[in-house]
């Protein structure tokens, strides 16, 4: 396992897309130390900022407050990256496989346009989780993002497939212009959830203030949600599914598009 210990927190963001199993896997320790990172516009070596220990392989551990280290795990296809501490923006962006775990919190754009793999953030995440980058037609197209704490605005913006589950409350515009996939909000959301959604499912265990362009469609016990519940339970997200516990109120929309998405809001019995 390769261990990277941050020497000091950079004062401007450090672009470190080289912290990825795909990049380091076949490099010698010397080559890993010499990998390029950008501090603002200045080009540095990886070992200018990190103590590098261990052998490069499919596992990388980053230690320290890396909340200003951007692009960790960018485009990775395999292996495992663990951040013991906080991670910066664009964590796991464009990744298509492998897993990323953060014990602390992460910045904006976690899993931006990711295609596969798993990202787990134990603490809070920023905005644009699994979102489309500006101008792109679609956001995440596969994979799973799990956040234990809260998350910011535009969560899952234009996502096409995949699963996002958040334990805490999320901010405005969750599922903005969503095209597919599933968002599970066990802690609820602020306003305008599902705005412009065309397809996909947003599940909330807490009542939401929905837009007027969502139409109530009655109580619902979707079978597919049982599968999600079984998948999510060991990961720390409890989704109630039994009819005696209550029912999901189904809202369809966003009629402003017009879309065929659904928002399922849990209502206990």
């Amino acid at each position, binding site marked *: 396992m390769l261990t990277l210990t941050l020497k000091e927190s950079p004062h401007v963001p450090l672009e470190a897309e080289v912290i990825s199993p795909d990049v380091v896997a076949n490099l010698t320790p010397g080559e890993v130390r010499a990998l390029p990172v950008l501090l603002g516009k200045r080009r540095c070596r990886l070992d200018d900022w990190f103590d590098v220990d261990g052998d490069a392989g499919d596992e990388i551990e980053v230690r320290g407050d890396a909340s200003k280290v951007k692009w960790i795990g960018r485009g990775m296809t395999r292996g495992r990256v663990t951040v013991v501490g906080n991670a910066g923006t664009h964590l796991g962006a464009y990744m298509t496989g492998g897993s990323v775990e953060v014990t602390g919190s992460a910045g904006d754009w976690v899993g931006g346009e990711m295609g596969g793999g798993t990202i787990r953030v134990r603490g809070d995440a920023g905005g644009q989780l699994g979102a489309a*980058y*500006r*101008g*792109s*037609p679609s956001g995440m197209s596969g994979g799973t993002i799990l956040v234990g704490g809260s998350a910011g605005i535009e969560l899952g913006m234009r996502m096409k497939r995949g699963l996002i589950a958040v334990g805490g409350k999320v901010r405005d515009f969750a599922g903005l212009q969503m095209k597919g996939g599933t968002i599970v909000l066990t802690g609820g959301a602020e306003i305008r959830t599902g705005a412009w959604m065309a397809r996909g499912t947003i599940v909330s265990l807490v009542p939401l203030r929905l837009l007027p362009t969502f139409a109530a469609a009655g109580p619902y016990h979707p079978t597919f949600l049982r599968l999600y519940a079984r998948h999510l339970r060991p990961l720390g997200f409890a989704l109630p599914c039994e009819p005696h516990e209550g029912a999901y109120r189904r809202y369809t929309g966003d009629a402003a598009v017009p879309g065929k998405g659904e928002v399922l809001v849990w209502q206990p019995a």
Partner: protein
Amino acid sequence: MLRITGGKVYDPANNINGEVRDVCISGGRVVAAVEDARTIDATGMVVFPGGVDVHTHVAGAALNFARGLIPEQHRQAAPIIHSRLRRAGLGGSTPTTFATGYLYAGMGWTTVNEAAVPILSAKHTHEELHDTPIVDKTCCVLMANNEILLDLMEAGEWERARHVMAWQVWAAKAYGVKAVNPGGVAAWKWGKDAKQLSDPIAGYSNITPGQIVAGLARLVDELKLPHPLHLHCNNLGAPGNVTTTLETMKTLEGNRAHLAHLQYHAYGGDDWSNISSASTTLADAFNACPNLTTDAGAVLFGNTVTVTADGPWQHLLYQLTGKKWANLDVENETGCGVVPYAYKPGSPANAVQWAVGLELLLLITDPWRVFLTTDHPNGAAFWRYPEVIRLLMDLDFRREQLKAIPDKVLKRIILPELTRQYTLSEIAVITSAGPARALGLSHKGHLGVGADADVAVYNESADVAHMFSYPRYVIKGGEVVIEEGELRNVVEGRGFVVKPAYDETVEGYLRPLFQQHYTMSFDNYPVAPERVHGLQVVEPAP
């Protein structure tokens, strides 16, 4: 001083066809002989006059809008890293200003004609053209939907219209006059279009698109502008639009015109399900009209962005794609639409478009009247010209590419039957000598004594796409800018501007109209000559 020696020179304007001879340069011009000059050994290479792009969109408000609308394409574009010589920038379908200059020169092109400038954004356009290094620039000002001109035509005041046209060319510091969807864009402001030449134009009662086309072409000829009316015909892009194009050619009544991006105006069929190539009909008619020149507006498959003053067409294209769309209204002058677009070989309509661009280049017999363009960025980015050159020169490659075209489309195009292959000399005509002549730039597009020393030297190779993508040397105005395939020197380009004669009292007529109808005051409107960097004024003979 410079002597290029040992290369095969292709200078079709001077009937030199692959002859090994020296090209001597002094003081930014081609000269008969030089002494004690630096010598470039071009043995095994071909020597071309620098490329001239007769129709491209590289600067101005519309193109900037397009740049802003496609960040997703910029993220994938080739970055140009800042160096001692170069500014940072991006390539892609709408390269940044400095990158545009490096990329054109990097392909051996040394002159470009920005084809659509509203006067209202002409200042901005000239600033961007200044930031487009190396290449020389000209631009065409949009007029066919200018409400002051249309009002004069409606009233039959042709004499005054001519003075207004001349004033506007000089006010915009333009080189030529552009007409885009005559009348149609004016009608778009009422939510309408004017597709046929006899259609009514919303907001007007007397004039038709046909009268605007004929009138503008006549005025341009009366003013003796070096470049004829640069015409984007009505009914662009629509299945069956070849009839409109043929009618337009008749309407011109022998006046000169340059028909822009003819590929977009050469379709048969009735709707999108049976759109077909009408290039045979169109090319036959075109071959018989010596008053006309055209450029291909060829399409290559891939992602790009379409940018045109043709607002109503762009709205239709947006409805067809269902993706992004931007619409700009340029007050009393024109409109503009921007729609990102991907041309796909599997799409029957796109496959027909791809074929038609090449068919026109192959069927129009006189290479001096049809030029290589992709209507950058509409059909493809300009830096993909070498791909088009390969398709024209290499029949086997063309047949290979045809395999990607769906079978049902093969029956609707004629490209599979065409066996013509361009020669290097013909390529020199369609990329340089021809467009320079059509633009009336007598000192460009050839290597005769007195010509501007704009020269591209390519390795002679069977892989023509590679050969034209990476010139060994490019000389601009006598300065070596590309050497051994690398950018070694960045020079500034010049701006060619036409000053036609007009009656100065026309300003007295225009001023009150401006104060009443424009958001900009009359005095702030014209582009000051100092704003055109490297200004070269051309005054047509009275």
